C-alpha cells in the first residue's frame, strides 16, 4: 500500500507545476538580464553576436517559462543594453554542454536537475541565475529575494571565477552568501 502511495505521489508530482510568485518572476525577468550584461566578459559569451538567455525548466513548468520569456521580450524590445538577444526555453532533460546559452535562468526542480544545471553553467563559464535562493547551495550563481528591499545574492564560491568579472559597482550592490549558510 505504501509503495502504491509513494508511486502515486512521485508520479503525480511529475504532472503539474511548482508554485511560483509572479512578482518574484517579474523581478528576476527584469533584473537578471541587466546583471548579465554587467559582466565585463559578456562579449566572450555571445553566440552569433547575440546573447542567448536560456530558461531551464521542468516539463510541468512550461507555462511559467513561457510567461517569463514573453515578459522579458516585452521589457527588452530588441536588445539587452547594446546586445541583440533571444530567449530560449530548455527542459532540464535536454540541457547539456552543447546547449547554446550566454546565461541560464533556472526554475524550480529536483536537486539532481539543479545540480546538473549548476554544473553545466560552471563548465561553460556562464552565469546561472536561480529563481529559488535555496538553490544557490547546489552551485547556482546568482539569485534575488524581495525582503524589505530587493536584495541580490551572489554565491561567494564563484566570486573569483575566471570566466566572470562583474563591474565594480555591481559588487557594491550585492550580498555575498556562503552556500553552506543557505
Amino acid at each position: 500500500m505504501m509503495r502504491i502511495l509513494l508511486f502515486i505521489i512521485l508520479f503525480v508530482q511529475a504532472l503539474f507545476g511548482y508554485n511560483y510568485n509572479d512578482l518574484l518572476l517579474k523581478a528576476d525577468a527584469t533584473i537578471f538580464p541587466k546583471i548579465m550584461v554587467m559582466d565585463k566578459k559578456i562579449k566572450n559569451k555571445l553566440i552569433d553576436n547575440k546573447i542567448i538567455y536560456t530558461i531551464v525548466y521542468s516539463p510541468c513548468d512550461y507555462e511559467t517559462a513561457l510567461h517569463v520569456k514573453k515578459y522579458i521580450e516585452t521589457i527588452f524590445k530588441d536588445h539587452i543594453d547594446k546586445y541583440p538577444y533571444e530567449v530560449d526555453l530548455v527542459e532540464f532533460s535536454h540541457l547539456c554542454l552543447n546547449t547554446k546559452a550566454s546565461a541560464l535562468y533556472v526554475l524550480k526542480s529536483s536537486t539532481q536537475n539543479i545540480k546538473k544545471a549548476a554544473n553545466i553553467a560552471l563548465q561553460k563559464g556562464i552565469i546561472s541565475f536561480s529563481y529559488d535562493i535555496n538553490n544557490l547551495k547546489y552551485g547556482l550563481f546568482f539569485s534575488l529575494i524581495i525582503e524589505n528591499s530587493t536584495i541580490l545574492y551572489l554565491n561567494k564560491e564563484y566570486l573569483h571565477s575566471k570566466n566572470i568579472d562583474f563591474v565594480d559597482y555591481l559588487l557594491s550592490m550585492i550580498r555575498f552568501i556562503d552556500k553552506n549558510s543557505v
Partner: protein
Amino acid sequence: MKYKINFFLLACLTTLHLQADDLRASLLSNMKEFDTIATQTKQNEHYQPYIISVFHGKELEKLGVSNLKEALTLVPGVDMATDNFNNQTPIFRGSNPFAYGQSKLLIDGVVVNNLFFDAYSEYLSMPIEMIKRIEVIRGPGSKVDGINAYAGSINVVTYAEDVDDFLSNDKLVFKYGSYDYRMGGFVKNFKTQTLKTHIDFYYQKDNKNISSGPDGVSQGSLGSANVGLSQSGDAPLWLDEYSLGLNMQYKEFSLKARILQHKQGSAYGINLALPQKSDRIKLPSYYAELGYAKKIDDFHVDIKVGVKYDAFDSKAKLAPDDVNLSGVVFPNGGYGEHYAKQRVLYQSSYLKYDGFINHHITLGYRVTQEKTIAIKSKLSNLATGNAALVDYTNTLPFFDKDARRTVYTFSLQDTYDVNEKLSVLYGVNYEQTSYKNAGLEPRVSFVYRKDFKNIFKAIYSCSHRNPSWQEMFTKNNHARVGSTNLEPEKVTSYELAYIRNFTSDSYLQSNLFYLVNKNQIYNSAADPVYRNVGKTDIYGIELEYKGHIFPDDELYANYAYIDGRYTVDGVSTSNSLPNVAHHLAKGYYIYNLSSAVSLGTTLKYVGSKERMPTDLRPKLKAYTTLDTALNYKNTHYNYSVNVSVKNIFDADVRYPSPQGTYVQDYAQERRTFLIAFKKSFR
C-alpha cells in the same frame, strides 16, 4: 592625429561610462520599483513593522471559500460573532465581541465600516471571486494615514490592482448552493496608456432560514408579562444584494467608488422577538473617493477626498400577537419601520519625505465629518395597540436626528533604517473629536533581519475606538440606548514576533501579544444603556505555518491561544474573558491531482467559550468543521468548476448570544454545498 585618437578614446570611455551609469541607474530604479510593489502588495510582509497574514483569492477559490467572511475565519486568532440583527463581525484576539468597530474593513484602501454600527457585516458576503487578496493586520499596529485600527484591520484588494499579474483577471462567475443560493458577477479591466478602469459587479441571493429559539421574549426582552409569547422557529437570515465597483486611474488622479445594495432578513428581531420570514433590514453602502498622488523628487504627496453614505433601514414585526406593552395590548402584534441615513465626508493629506538618508518621514492629517441626514420612526399605535403604523419620527424617534461628529487626526511617523538589518518605526497620532478625545497615541516598532531566514519584531502601540453611532445616539428602544458621554475604548499593545523563512514560499511565524484594553463599552438586556464599564487584559500566542509537504502542494496551518482577565470598573475582582474561545486552530491543504484538478480541505477548530459571571448558562460548546472542495481548471477554454461541501460532519456551530436574549445562542448553517463556475478571459 594624436589628439584626435585621444579624443576618440575619451569619447568612447565617456560613452561606456554613460552606458554603465544608465545601466546602474536602470537597475537601481527597477529594484526600487519592485520594493514599492512588494510593499504595496504585501509580498514582503514579513519585513513590515506589524503582524500580518495575507490570503490570495485564487488560492481560496480552490478551497471552495465562497466569500469574505469564510476567508476571515481562516485568519489566526480571529473568531466570528453575531447579534440579533445578524450583524456579523470578526473578533480579533478575543476583543470585545459586542463592539463592532474594533476592526476596520478597507476595500482598495477605502474604509467601509458603516457609521451606524461601525461594522461591515454587509461586506462580509462579498464573493471571493471579486477579491484578489486579503491582508489582515492583527493588533493596533496597522494604524496608517489617520485610520485607527483597534484590534485589527482587513484590507481587501480587488482586481483593480494589476501590478504583478502575467495574465488578465477579467472573468465571469456563477455560483449555486444550499439555501437556493445563486450568484452571478463579473470583473472587467480596461487599460490604455494613461487610463486604467476596473469594474466589478455581482448579484447574489438566497433563502436561508435557520431554526432558532426560544427567542429573547422568553428571557423578558418585552417584559415579564409577555414571556409566555416567546416563539421558536426559523430566523430569516436570507440575503439579497448587488454591488457595482468602479476604480479609475488617470495619471496622478484616481477614483474609487462602490454601490452596495444589501438586503437581509431581520434575523433574530430588533427587540429579540422572532420576526416574520419576509421582514428585512437594508444596509446600503455607497462611497466615492478621489485621490491625487504625486512624487516630486524626494517628496510624495497623497491627497484624498471622499464621501460615504450608509443607512440602517428596517421593516419588521417587532412583537408577537397579543403582546402587552405598558398596559396596551396589540392583538395583531407590533410592527415598526426604522430608518437612519448617515453621511461621512472626509479629506486627508499626507506628505512623505525620503530626503534624509535612511529616513522615510510621513506627516499629515485626516478630517472626518459624520452626520445623520435622515431618520424615520414608524410603529404600531402605542396608544391603541392597532397594528397600523403611526409616524413617531418627531415624537418618539429611535435615533437622535441631529447626530453629528467631527474628527481631526494628525500623524507623524518616521521609518529609520538604522543599518541593513535593523529598522525602527516610530510616530504619534493625535486625535480630537467633537465629543471625547483619544489624545496622543505613540507607536514604536523594531524589525531586525538577522539574515533572510530569521526576522524578529517588537511592537509597542496605542490606539482607540471611538464609540459607534448606535452606542451614542440610539434612544426610545428596549434593547439599546446610546450615550454621548462615552469615552473611546483604548488599547495599549505589546507584541513580539519571530519569523523563520524556510524557503522563499514557506515560513513559520510566531508571535506573543499582550493587550491592555480600557473603557470597554457594553450594555445588557437588563441595562440597555451603553457604558464604559471595564477593562480587559488579553494575552496569547499565535503560530502560523505556510509551506509544502511536497514541492507542489500547499499547506497552511495556524493556532492561537488567547486568555485574559475582565475587570468591571470599581470592582476589585476580575473574571476570565467571557465569550472568547481560548483555542483556535485553522488550516487548509491543497493537493494538485494533476495540472487541471486539485483537491482542497479546510479544517477549523473553535474552542469553547465561557459566559459572563452572571450568566448561568453552560459554556458555549467547541466545534470543529471540515470542508472539502474539488477544483477543475480547463486551460484550453479558460474556465474552472469548483464543487465544495462545507461542514461535512454537520457540526453544530453557534455564535454566543448575550445574557437575557436567545438562550440557545445564535445557530449557524450546518452542512452545505456550493458549485462555482468561472470563465476567465485572457
